[in-house]
């Protein structure tokens, strides 16, 4: 068993997840280990149902493993309760989701302001509007998600994720709901922001082309993670 890597932004050791389904235990993840260094990008690829989202939720501290350990920024998540993990996410973790997950009742600006306000930042409005300008939506601050195209919505989501200057960004199929051209633009933007902010990136995708742009690729097959550094 490899010890926790204190230099790594994210380090996971022997992560397993077991759920009980119809009275039978079901292993959806077996002893997965990986580590992500500062500024490093990692892709996790696998077919639908291979356990990608489960792994992502464990790595990001959204869920707790049945066994094994995750450390974010050198801090073991096992020692933190839900609020402690939330605090860690608030200050250092960004998310991008396949279905954007913008709050429909908030404007683009307000959506980006949300994580800043949760962190109690006084300059939430200014930072958020700068971030939106940076992703090319400076003219659409007051638009609601329903008035934005899919690509624009994902840009807002990227602005929201990078607004807090996260140490690590988790992206779950960020191009899954977009056409190829828009998808490419979003990915370009994602990697651009990633390198600008020197953010580590964990990307879950089934798109091999997208995965190939990452520093490392892990493959999930039936809940087993096979690591391969590019």
């Amino acid at each position, binding site marked *: 068993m490899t010890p926790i890597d204190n230099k790594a932004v994210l380090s996971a050791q022997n992560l397993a997840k077991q759920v009980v389904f119809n009275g039978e235990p079901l292993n959806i993840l077996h002893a997965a280990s990986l580590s992500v260094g500062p500024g490093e990008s990692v892709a996790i690829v696998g077919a639908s149902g291979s356990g990608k*989202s489960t792994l*992502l*939720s464990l790595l*990001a501290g*959204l*869920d707790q493993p049945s066994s094994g350990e995750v450390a974010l920024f050198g801090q073991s998540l096992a020692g933190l309760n*839900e*609020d402690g993990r*939330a*605090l*860690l*996410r*608030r*200050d250092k*973790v960004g*998310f991008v*989701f396949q*279905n954007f*997950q913008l*709050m*429909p*009742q*908030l404007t683009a600006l*307000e959506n980006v302001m*949300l*994580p800043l*306000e*949760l*962190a*109690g930042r006084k300059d939430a409005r200014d930072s958020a509007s700068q971030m939106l300008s940076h992703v090319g939506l400076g003219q659409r601050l007051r638009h609601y998600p*329903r008035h934005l195209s899919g690509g624009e919505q994902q840009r807002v989501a990227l602005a*929201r994720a990078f607004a807090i200057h996260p140490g690590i960004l988790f992206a*779950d199929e960020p191009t899954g709901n977009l056409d190829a051209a828009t998808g490419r633009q979003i990915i370009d933007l994602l990697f651009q922001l990633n390198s600008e902010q020197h953010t580590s990136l964990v990307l879950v995708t089934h798109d091999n082309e997208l995965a190939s742009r990452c520093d490392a690729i892990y493959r999930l097959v039936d809940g087993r993670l096979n690591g391969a550094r590019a």
Partner: protein
Amino acid sequence: MSWWSRLLLAARFVRREIVSGELTILALALLVAVTALTSVSFFSDRVERALTTQATQLLAADLVLNGNQPAPPAIRQEAQRRGLQLADNISFPSMVFAQGQATLATYKAVSNSYPLRGEITLRGADGQSSKGVLHPAAGTVWADARLLRKLGLKLGERISVGNTSLLLSGEILREPDGAMDLYNFVPRLMFNSADLPATGLIQEGSRARWRLMLAGDDQQISAFRQWLGQHLPAGSRLENVEEARPEIRTALERARRFLGLTAMLTVALAAAAVALAVRRYLARHWQPVAVLRCMGLTSSEVLGLFVCLFLLLGLLSGVLGALAGYAVQLGLMQLSSRFVGEVLPDPGWHSWLLGPASSLLLLAGLALPPLLAIRNVSPLAVLRNDVVLLRSNLLAPLAAVLALLALAAWQMDDAVLAAWLLAGMTAFFAGVAALAWGMLWLLRRLPAGPRIGWRYGVANLARRPWLAIVQIVALAVGIMALLTLTVVRDDLIAAWQHSIPADAPNKFVINIQQNQRAALLDRFAVAGLQQPELSPMIRGRLIAINDKPLRPSALQDERARRLAEREFNLSWRDDLPQGNQLVAGSWWQGKAKPQFSVEQGLAGTLGIRLGDTLAFDIGGSTYRARVTSLRAVAWDSFRVNFFVLAPPSLLQQQPASWISSFRLDGTQEEFANRLVAAFPNITIIDVTAILDEVRAMVDKLTRAIEAMFVLALAAGVLVLWAALAATRDERLSDIALMRALGASRSQLRAVVLAELAWLGAFTGLLAALGAMGIGGLAAGKLFNLPFSINIWLLPIGMACGVAVVTLAGWPLVGRVTRASPLAILRAG
């Protein structure tokens, strides 16, 4: 597509929708609606029937034919042929002699089947009191306490009754029709009618009243009442508790309206719950409908599917709701049986029918209009992941109002009244929506508060204006109902009970002669009692209106005919009597010239208008004058009241006897006896018994309404839950996202609580305003009671709003704050 295959498709669709649980909330909302509606209906139906029964107990029968001679055999035969129960009650005044003393008493000879309704409470020779359907056996006689005291009689002694003597075997503590004889203050003596011939008391020209008492089921009675109307013997009339006793009639009418109001509010609550559930259901089905359209179903086929679904759902919920309503009502009965009576009559069939009918009607009014919009769903919608808001058009509120109006008219049995209430409620809805919109608009423009919970809670509310307004309106209706049923109800009941004041007179004294007035008033002063006001009473017959002779036989209305036949008690005075209110014209001042003031109910019955000239025959002379005012008279004030008043100038010269009313409490009872001893010609009428009857009835009505209020309260809380459930999905996804973005539990709690608190405060404020309006409307239009606005409603309403929304809402939305951020990854 053939009809058959459409039907099969619909059946499969319905089954899948029910199994999938998508309809659970809507079905529950309907079920709750119908349960509330039918339980109130069952309950009020049975309570009303019980109250009617209790009212008939005052007659000791359902129907009484009152004549100055025995009812013709043909009438008895017809009643028997129709399967009605019969009893006889012959009453007449006569002297009773015992222990060498004599006193005047009212004799009452009853047949073995007396009483047909109600019970007699009796104390036997053994000192034990018994209660039941009792009558004196042949050869025995019962007397009331007054007679026993007056003549110093003891049970077991014999009394001379006419030519015979009877054994005094019981003391009457209470007889069902005792209070009926308002002018029968004199002591009571009751014996078996089998002994009547032996007494020889009934002779030609005796002043006896022959009452043929009848009882049967509602249909039999109303059919026989009609038949009797055409075969009424001369000198006879039908006694009807509602017509005979204005104060009982008023109490019953108010009760009916109060129960109707309670039911109506429950309907409004139920409708709000259904509307919210339908909205949620349809919003969640926009995409599936688009998929169905993609698969090739025409828009009318899709509509047909959903109409089938809702029909089935409506029928199911209606039947189950009616059963649940019956069960709830049984619980209510347990709760209130000791107030309303142990055994209540079964509810009528229309209460059962109300279940499915109301369920379908609610769906038709509240689900159909938004459902029609489903025809416009484009197959293209599958490609768009938009949040679809149901747009409202004019049809939706119109259909909702019509459905509510129909239900209200059914509940209240009065379309005009229902329309009045609905008009008030619709205005309220519109007003609340507008006010809510204004408040949200303001909120959205307020600078952000320093605290995250406050800021996002407020913003959550303000950023969902349409939904927030729906919630505020629905919740405001609920809380308005609560306020109306508690604070306003208390105000109304206080006003109602105030109309029968605790110090209401309990004795009427009549037949005071002109020259006895000063001496009589002196007696009051000597006894340290307040001197009562004496009013002159002059008997006169109304002979013409506007010089057109009044022919009683030509009048259609039975009550009008009876009024026209009998002599009126007229009076004269300078000032408007206490408890009277001018409703038209003006009261005379100073030395006014001859004119009349007429009670408005009488004026309405006889068609008398302001400015008409009335002619009265008083002692053979005709008195003519114009009607210069109409008065509203509080008949349940138990004060001396007159249908027709005139200024002294018109009637002062007429010989009059004088009448008064005053109050004596327990220890002062003896004063009445001393008064009679001093002025043997006067008659004192004791209305304590009548007052007790009325007050007991008012108390029972209050209990019944309180019992129903418990149900309306439950319905209100359920509406709140339906409203919160409707926004639960959105809230859940908001919270999960915020959690994923790192919000702490306390931040999430603050967000949710702040939103609930704002919602509650808005809702409570608007509910208080609405309750004020409804209270004013109800007091004025329904109950004819004075009602002053209770300013405390505002703070109470807001506190209630915050408390109700937070306490009831937290268990439902509080759980949301424990939502796992994981949900955000799984959300499609």
